[in-house]
């Protein structure tokens, strides 16, 4: 990169507001895992670890403005073309103020420049953001809840804090499946809570002895205790209650030919909407339904889940073209009772599965 190109590049990134820059010889890290780069015009010898520190060192800013080899941040110096690069062994931290000490040539005095990689993130107050299914009217054979939190939660104690409580205030401690490993998303913010399938499946021993956890026409509440802590040790602060009114169990496979598809007009950007005839699984909707054009290419646009997971809406990026389209539904899509396109969650052994892995809804605009 020539000096001119470099200055141009610097101007561009400066205009974009990503980097605050003092001298054009120095690149500051844009994020915590970033590096510090210094343009070195003269030839350096091979003892990188020696010249590296003298020419470019980074410190945590201190009140005494005392910067010595004793308090320099430790890391690796490397050289790439005209750049001397410093990468700390451990990433920079947002909220900390750092001081870079540089020398463009060996005869220059030291110059200092301070920077931050970003503002310190204050940990948001822990809370339940949402619970799915979002509707309050849910079938007797409901299979699972998804509970979303805004911060990662402490693991291994979920069932101590989650209860199914009936209208008399009695807690059903056997309602949910106890796993050795709780079902958390990678970021620790979504928990999947499964009802004990033994309670749901008809004719299984726990279903016979205890009955289903949810019973039609009765009311319950899913309670998430405010005493539950996130990984930072802060409590949820308030107990969250989701009211449940139990309706008839879902005892049919998902039949996509019963879905209502509202077609958009050609040459418009109108929404395409699909009304299901039951409540679908919130997580699976997001990956199991696709829209393709007649060349079998995915139509670009945005999906939105509406009406308590009973409806989805697609807004295209470009205007609809005239022609044939196809909605592709993966047969593994489940309703909230775990029934999919192929079978029921509690099917008889002799029930033959519908073996198509995909089903399609074709339409024309």
């Amino acid at each position, binding site marked *: 990169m020539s000096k001119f190109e470099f200055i141009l590049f610097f101007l561009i990134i400066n205009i974009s507001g990503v980097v605050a820059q003092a001298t054009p010889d120095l690149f500051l890290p844009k994020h915590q895992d970033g590096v510090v780069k210094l343009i070195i015009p003269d030839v350096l010898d091979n003892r990188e670890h020696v010249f590296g520190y003298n020419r470019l060192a980074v410190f945590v800013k201190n009140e005494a403005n005392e910067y010595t080899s004793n308090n320099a941040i430790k890391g690796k110096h490397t050289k790439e073309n005209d750049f001397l690069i410093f990468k700390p062994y*451990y990433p920079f931290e947002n909220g900390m103020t750092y001081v870079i000490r540089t020398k463009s040539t060996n005869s220059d005095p030291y110059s200092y420049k301070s920077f931050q990689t970003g503002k310190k993130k204050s940990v948001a107050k822990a809370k339940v953001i949402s619970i799915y299914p979002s509707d309050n009217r849910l079938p007797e054979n409901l299979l699972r809840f998804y509970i979303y939190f805004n911060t990662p939660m402490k693991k291994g104690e979920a069932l101590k804090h989650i209860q199914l409580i009936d209208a008399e205030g009695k807690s059903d401690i056997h309602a949910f499946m106890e796993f050795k490993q709780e079902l958390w998303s990678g970021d620790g913010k979504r928990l999947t809570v499964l009802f004990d399938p033994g309670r749901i499946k008809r004719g299984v021993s726990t279903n016979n002895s205890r009955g289903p956890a949810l019973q039609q026409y009765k009311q319950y509440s899913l309670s998430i205790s405010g005493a539950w802590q996130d990984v930072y040790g802060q409590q949820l602060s308030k107990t969250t209650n989701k009211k449940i009114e139990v309706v008839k169990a879902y005892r049919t496979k998902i039949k996509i030919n019963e879905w209502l598809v509202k077609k958009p007009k050609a040459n418009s950007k109108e929404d395409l909407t699909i009304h299901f005839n039951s409540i679908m699984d919130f997580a699976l909707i997001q990956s199991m339904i696709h829209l393709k054009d007649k060349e079998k290419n995915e139509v670009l646009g945005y999906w939105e889940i509406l009406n308590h997971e009973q409806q989805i809406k697609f807004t295209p990026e470009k205007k609809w073209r005239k022609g044939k389209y196809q909605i592709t539904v993966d047969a593994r899509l489940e309703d909230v009772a775990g029934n999919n396109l192929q079978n029921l969650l509690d099917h008889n052994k002799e029930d033959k599965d519908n073996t198509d892995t995909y089903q399609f809804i074709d339409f024309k605009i």
Partner: protein
Amino acid sequence: MNLKKLLFLSALTFTTFLVNAQEMKTLGALEFSPEGILFAGDKISGAIHAFDLSAEKKSIDKFEINAYNVDAQVAATLGTSVGNVKINDMAVHPKSGEVYLSVTRGHAIDALPVLIKVNATNQLQIIDLASVKRTSQTLSKLPDGSQNFIIRGTMAPATIKEIEKSKLPMRTLSIMDIEYHKGEVFVAGITNENFCSALRRMPYPFNGTESVSNIEMFHIAHDEYETRAPIRSFLIENIDGKDQMVAAYTCSPLVLIPLDELKNGAKVKARTLGDMGNGQPLDMVSFSMKGNNMIFVTSNSRTPRVIPVGGLNKAKVYTENDFKRGGKTDMDTLPVGPMGRPVMFTGSALHIALLNPMEFATIRRDPETGSMDLETVSIFFPNKLNNVMAEMDFPQYAEEHKNDKKK
């Protein structure tokens, strides 16, 4: 949260050591073998990691280590603030004589493991963990992290700090101390059982196997047989003609456990030789003073003790029959047995190791300022003169005694 950072780090570890499937998540208790293999306890991933640092050589023949405000120095080299670093343990390299620190940078899921060397010239160096050859032994039967301690009933309402203590997962006690002895690694800690106080032994080089024994002992101060609270620190010494563990518990019994009884699945009864007095032991260091083998024991709430190993030979074993029923304290009964002498110390000990045959390296809190310093003290005078202002500090005294040595 910084998931990217964690992924990056684990990716780094994995690409360098595809053979080493065991993740490294934290570095706690440290122990060197005489060859320079550094063993480190990882309570989070549930493993003992062995780092090959055997190539290290002595650079300076004789040196002291004095790194004042060592926590601030560690924070500065890691680009963070003092509140964001915790020094977990300290060990001295048997060849170079330099000091290694296991450190945690950051908290909770943002925490990163760090290994730092304070070298012979008192400079801090970060060990690039990805470039050191590592093997690991996974530990079985560890507490899964779901069960915490309780708030113990006391006469007063629980303080904020007592409540914080009760929130610790039991897993935090899974690896308390590590010792290397004749080709084996011994680990004190707890398992996921009810009878959970445990000693593990595993061959090194690791071969994927470990043997786990459960340890019971008579606790003089509590007047009961205990099976849960783990050994806090231990050493292996030759006592009564065989290799035995000398182990210290909280509040503070000292027990013997013969190594030949540590078999997989065994329930071992330790021999209680005495009690050092109430409080919680931190470290035990073996050293030699005037030709006698001694043990230096530090505590988080009392002055250190020097125990002659010779006094543990043919020592009386205490049982419940030796005492009236009921708890015992410093105020009435303790210490009991051949527990040596309490000695002065250069502040409140946090970590200690033998730097060379004549000196200890210690991380301690300064008695006056509370600063955390890494300091070297003599085994004969484990204190520093800056802590005491005495007759001998007066100029007139020096004047009067200037000819003393000549006489």
